[in-house]
């Protein structure tokens, strides 16, 4: 129960960190609340996978310490850059006006595996460094077994996810075509910012090892 309550307590911060990725996605794909709930589930699934991966990796290597004590900047820089590229790909290639005709390349990929986009964004959001994540990591460090550590992350994740559910109401804006364009353009704007953050982290790590 404690990790779940911890998740509830830090949910607002968690929402703030996920919102720049989740809100453009919800607006860009606004096709009803039910569809938005499905997207949210896919996003959260990806995010949970990111959390669990970190929990498992930390346990498996026997280094239950805050992630990335070595090459932290590089690891998170790459994660930010990957998140940015996925957002940019979404914003540019899902745009109905920019790419007309038969889908090819990234656009075809996004159409073939529609769940890959929200899950991928969720995963990359999950593996990024944020205060709630560090909080969970510190809590999980107390667990002596891998299952205890994973369970801690899972319950913490469940507590924080409660705060994401209201965002699915954005799906109700499906009547407004402009909302979808705004969502995708916002994804590009956020993507550019995260690309900058990612590149900066990588450059700092490379320039100042």
């Amino acid at each position: 129960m404690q990790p779940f309550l911890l998740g509830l307590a830090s949910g607002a911060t968690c929402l703030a960190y996920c919102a720049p990725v989740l809100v453009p996605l919800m607006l860009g794909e606004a096709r009803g609340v039910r569809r938005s709930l499905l997207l949210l589930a896919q996003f959260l699934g990806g995010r949970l996978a990111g959390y669990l991966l970190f929990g498992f990796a930390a346990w498996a290597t026997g280094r239950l310490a805050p992630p990335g004590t070595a090459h932290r900047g590089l690891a998170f820089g790459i994660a930010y850059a990957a998140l940015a590229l996925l957002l940019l790909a979404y914003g540019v290639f899902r745009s109905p006006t920019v790419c007309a005709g038969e889908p090819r390349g990234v656009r075809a990929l996004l159409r073939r595996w529609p769940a890959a986009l929200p899950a991928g964004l969720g995963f990359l959001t999950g593996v990024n460094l944020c205060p709630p994540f560090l909080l969970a990591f510190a809590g999980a460090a107390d667990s002596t077994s891998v299952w205890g550590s994973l369970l801690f992350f899972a319950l913490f994740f469940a507590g924080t996810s409660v705060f994401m559910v209201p965002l699915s109401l954005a799906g109700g804006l499906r009547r407004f075509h402009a909302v979808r364009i705004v969502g995708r353009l916002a994804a590009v704007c956020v993507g550019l910012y995260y690309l900058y953050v990612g590149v900066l982290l990588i450059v700092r790590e490379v320039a100042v090892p």
Partner: protein
Amino acid sequence: MTEAPGRPQVVRPRLTAGKSVLLTVPMMLLTAMLLAGGPALPTDPLLLTSVAVTWVLLNVVFFRMLSTGRVFAYRSALFVTLAVAFVITFSTALLSTRGSLALSDSDIVQGKTPFCHLVIPFVIVPGIFTRTIIFPGTLVGTFASIGSMIVLWLGATLALGRAWCSWICFYGGLDEGFSKLGKRPRIATVPRWLTHLPWAVLIAVVLLSAVSLSPVYCEWLCPFKAVTEAPAITNALVIFQTVLFVTLFVALVVVLPVLLKRRAQCGLFCPFAAFQSLANRVTAFDVRIDRERCTDCGLCVRTCPTFSLTEDSVRAGRTLITCTMCGRCVDVCPSGAARYHVKGTGINASANAARTLFLFPAFVFMSAIGGGMISTAIWRLLRLATTGSMF
């Protein structure tokens, strides 16, 4: 007014000279009070001259708006003057109080950064959740303090909605000034999706400001840093930021407005503009198209400075939510179909009455904020001419 040969005769409601004078008298009294700033007139002859010139300018413009029915032409001239005056006044005020236009780390820590209305949408969410204002300014008691700017903005917003952007925003005047250069647009149309960009920038910047607890727009995207104040250049990151500010200013405030002959920064990028559009829902005024008079010539759609009219919206007899009530469509409409309107009244109600009712609050706010700037700018220039120094 003599129309150029070949141009359609514009049907424009206007007031008689007598009525215009009568309605200008209250404005003369109000602007006199606003500019004098107290019961006594300034004793410095240069200051007195600058106040008098500003007073005459404001009231001549207001009188001409009423008597000719041309709102856009006169508003635009005053609006551009206000923007130029702002740059002069703001820069010289910073130089005299802080000694430099560059914003040092010490100024930021001490909260000496003047608050600007463009930041308002980005401080709301962090303000609610963290009870802190994510801006390095002072809450009350200093030049352009956070409290005074928010109160001013709130009052003007409730009265005017997004008309703020064409009557008060001292940045918009720069955009408008450049958009008036050149005879005809080099780029005739912009893709419709691009007009949604301000909303996307608004969403992105609000969310990213909430995450980083810093005013992301001021740090990375504000084109007007190029002509006001910007962080002192101390490292490579600040050089990059400065290059970005200058690039955005040149692209959005100079080049694109000249090519489009429209306000590119205000209509295609400014997130504050998108946020301010929401206030059009609460204000008492809007601009409507009288469908019985409209000939669907499309002139208003092609010339709207902020892309706030489309063929669909004209057919519906309305402007889009982004309308700044600048008066452009009202001025150019050959059939007098575009007109200022008071919500709750019929479209056939007196166009003169609606326009006059709108002009009073709009002009009072414009004078209250811009009058002092224009007067101070004139004073600075007079000092420069007579003493060789602006200070």
